[in-house]
């Protein structure tokens, strides 16, 4: 019997990275990377940014060129969907009926765009953005003069709004909450971004809920809001978050709670099965909490955790969760997670027009930083969060106090 390979289900950012790390860490056996999409692992971040604006190519989206997989002896099985996990036999079943035995299974299934449960959501011109194919459809619709309605003021929605403005579209963002990025950013950043988008000509409706999408000849023509207003559009982008792909794990009896439950080595409760990336719900070492993170840095960190555990290597150093976003000429960089901050303090960037907002716990521990065109402040903030430094708000707000010294613990 030939040795069983490691099977990676899901050939996205996390799955592709796990395959690469397994080889880096010395796994000599087979690696089979099974993905539903027809293309090799690629980067999603540019889909709402550079790629949408026509500033990136398919080649530059790819995480690694095709020859990489040959050279590293990673068998990529693309366009194939995993439909079941047979834990007793240690096999996965593909849609074709074929079964692949595994030594270890890594679930890297990602997440899918959350559907909007209102009438008309199935009309033509109602789009979501998760995959390169989605981005193709969106790009085709964003012709100059087109009217785009973005439903949901999250990162993807706002990035698409910015890119659509650059393409000459009219853009309206409809957000149910009282501010954009309500789930993921502090109030100061939300307010700043909403203002910036408005200054760029985007109409932003807050506290506005979509009741239905109305069509003409099968294609979306307007949004109807709960307050009775209607809003004409020729394309609607639904950007109301993502739902983890956990059905396979659930059906196989693995514990899931808004994501497949894993530990800090990316292990599920089955010692032969790991889960990584957007499909997981994971512990966060610094805060002692657990949550689902949707970011490339998280996908890479968990890919390392799983590969290290499988290869018997020490686990990677825990990372501070972080994220970036590009909108217009704004580079946003966030690190840490501001669970119920006691205080938030703004500090101007040492260079240029940017600023950073630091979020502090009641005992002055730096929980998170949000930086807008302030890369040095972001880097310093990330260090402060990692080291769990306590810094009084007044000190952080004082541009005369050196962040370098604060990060080094000298001030």
């Amino acid at each position: 019997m030939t040795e069983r390979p490691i099977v990676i289900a899901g050939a996205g950012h996390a799955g592709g990275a796990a395959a690469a790390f397994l080889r880096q860490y010395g796994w000599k056996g087979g690696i089979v990377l099974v993905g539903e999409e027809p293309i090799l692992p690629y980067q999603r971040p540019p889909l709402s940014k550079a790629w949408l604006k026509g500033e990136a190519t398919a080649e530059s989206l790819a995480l690694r060129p095709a020859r990489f997989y040959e050279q590293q002896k990673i068998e990529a099985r693309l366009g194939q969907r995993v439909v079941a996990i047979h834990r007793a036999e240690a096999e996965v079943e593909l849609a074709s009926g074929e079964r692949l035995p595994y030594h270890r299974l890594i679930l890297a299934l990602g997440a899918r765009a959350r559907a909007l449960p209102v009438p008309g959501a199935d009309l033509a011109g109602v789009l979501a953005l998760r995959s390169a194919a989605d981005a193709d459809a969106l790009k085709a619709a964003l012709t100059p003069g087109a009217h785009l309605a973005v439903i949901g003021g999250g990162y993807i929605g706002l990035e698409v709004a910015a890119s659509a403005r650059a393409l000459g579209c009219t853009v309206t963002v409809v957000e149910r909450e009282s501010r954009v990025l309500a789930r993921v950013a502090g109030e100061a950043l939300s307010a700043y971004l909403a203002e910036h988008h408005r200054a760029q000509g985007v109409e932003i409706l807050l506290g506005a809920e979509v009741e239905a999408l109305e069509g003409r000849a099968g294609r979306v023509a307007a949004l109807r809001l709960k307050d009775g207003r209607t809003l004409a559009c020729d394309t609607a982008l639904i950007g109301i978050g993502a739902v983890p792909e956990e059905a396979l794990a659930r059906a196989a009896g693995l514990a899931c709670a808004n994501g497949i439950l894993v530990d800090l080595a990316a292990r599920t409760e089955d010692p032969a099965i790991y889960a990584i990336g957007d499909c997981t719900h994971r512990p966060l070492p610094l805060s002692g909490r657990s949550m689902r993170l949707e970011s490339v840095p998280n996908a890479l960190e968990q890919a390392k955790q799983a590969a290290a555990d499988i290869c018997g290597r020490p686990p990677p150093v825990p990372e501070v969760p972080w994220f970036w976003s590009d909108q217009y000429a704004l580079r946003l960089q966030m690190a840490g997670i501001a669970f119920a901050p006691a205080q938030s303090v703004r500090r101007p960037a040492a260079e240029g027009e940017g600023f950073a907002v630091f979020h502090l716990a009641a005992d002055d521990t730096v929980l998170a930083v949000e930086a807008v065109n302030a890369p040095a402040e972001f880097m310093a903030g990330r260090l402060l969060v990692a080291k769990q430094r306590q810094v009084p708000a007044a000190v952080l707000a004082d541009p005369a106090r050196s962040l370098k010294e604060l990060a080094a613990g000298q001030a």
Partner: protein
Amino acid sequence: MPNITYVEFDGTAHQVEVPVGHSVMQGAVENNIPGIDADCGGECACATCHVYVEESWLPQCGTPGEQERSMLGFAATAAPNSRLSCQIRVTEALDGLVVRMPEAQH
């Protein structure tokens, strides 16, 4: 194609050919060389592609931009010859370049 040598923190050296126009970061990623994480994929947003450029090669690598300088100022193990490898474009003039990796990128 220019040859670039990447030296891991433990001294392991990898000499590879990197196409002109690629970044030094891409050269490492496409050859699965450990030690360069490149979380942001070359957007100068993460500083996880930090390398030390051998002194004699610094001029050929061009001058770092403002964003890169700001990020490097706070990289945990930055030195005067630190660069973000995603911001170094490979040219024929970089044939023979040697870069070293820090102990960790985070």
